């Protein structure tokens, strides 16, 4: 089960405080793209939309990402 968009873990993932790696190439690409787009553009609005995009993506691919999701969010 993924945490809600208001959970601070999403910000930590996107600002690199928590380093995440995924086994699904599209997820890796998305996270890298979101992190790049936030460099020098740390407005809350941009951060919120990035969190929404990442969480929506993980929900869609949850069947492929169960072990990654458990590893990253399971013990938070």
């Amino acid at each position, binding site marked *: 089960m993924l945490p809600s968009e208001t959970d601070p873990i999403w910000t930590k993932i996107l600002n690199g405080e928590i380093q*995440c*790696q*995924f*086994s*699904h*190439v*599209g*997820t*890796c*690409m*998305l*996270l*890298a*793209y979101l*992190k*790049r787009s936030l*460099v020098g553009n740390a407005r809350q609005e941009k951060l919120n939309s990035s969190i929404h*995009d990442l969480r*929506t*993506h993980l929900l*869609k*691919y949850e*069947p*492929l990402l169960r072990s990654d999701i458990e590893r990253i969010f399971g013990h938070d």
Partner: protein
Amino acid sequence: MISRLDEVSSIINSGTPIMVAGGADMMRRLPRGNWIGGTTPFILGSADNAQTRDSLFINIMPPEAKLKSIQRYGMGGLHMLPEDVPDKGFTLVIMPTGTLVHQAFAKEAPHYPGIYSKTLSGWVSGSKSGHFSGRPQVFYGPRGHCMDDEVVAMHMELPENLVASVEMINVFEPEERPIIRFPNDGFITTHATIDGESVNFAEYLTARKANLDYPLLADYCGARINVSIKQYDVASGQVSFYGPLFRNVDYRFAKPVTDMKQKLMNFLPKDGTRPVFSCICVSNYMQGMLQDFPSSNFDGPVAYGEIAHLLLNQTMTYLRIVKK
């Protein structure tokens, strides 16, 4: 699978959606129908020359997938492609190498809304240098049109209990040092920083005697993404690439790969995965001398660029369907 012309025609006439790869002369003889095609001289898993033989390679779309539409996209409509990819399903695309649409996709795709969360897979068509069949082409099956300046796409929908996923196999591994950074996004650069020191990158590559068989690698949160060096020229001071570079990304040189064939075999899934579609880069195919690569579930067109959400270089990519 490799099929004779009459077999391919029969499948098309049955209405089954298929992707076709091989020679343009053969594809011109196919009936109109639910198919897209692209030219390539080589098929992984088949030693024959695909542009001169009397057969074609086909991927038959799985029965659980329903054809939504087959579309063509020119320069003016390319940005519409990701919007047309079904949210629940996948899209197979083919685009001709060295064309404006190819370059535009490479450059713009990373910024298309939703591109990473929709399942877009495919390949870049090509032709053997100097071969009589000429320029790389794609085919739009519903009208039997042959084109050299458009993208063709087959949009397929899946039922709620299935999800499609594009996967990538990259046999290259990065060296630890140096760490290379570029000042701007793009396909051409003059300068780079090497472990923090600014250099003319063409001069640096010349001094290093860089082997263009091996790409630069970037780590995208666990995915090793290659960018192949096209050429470098000390006179102009420019280095050009087959894929886009991004600033704020660390790149490294790839370690030499001595046994491409064995490495590739090691990376292939051993769980009986039968991909809907797979392709391998022509550079890997030639370097690895994969003409005698054993036929497997991963047979497919040898590509001049692989598409897994974005345009990739020097990889194998495949599309699979997974039960939720």
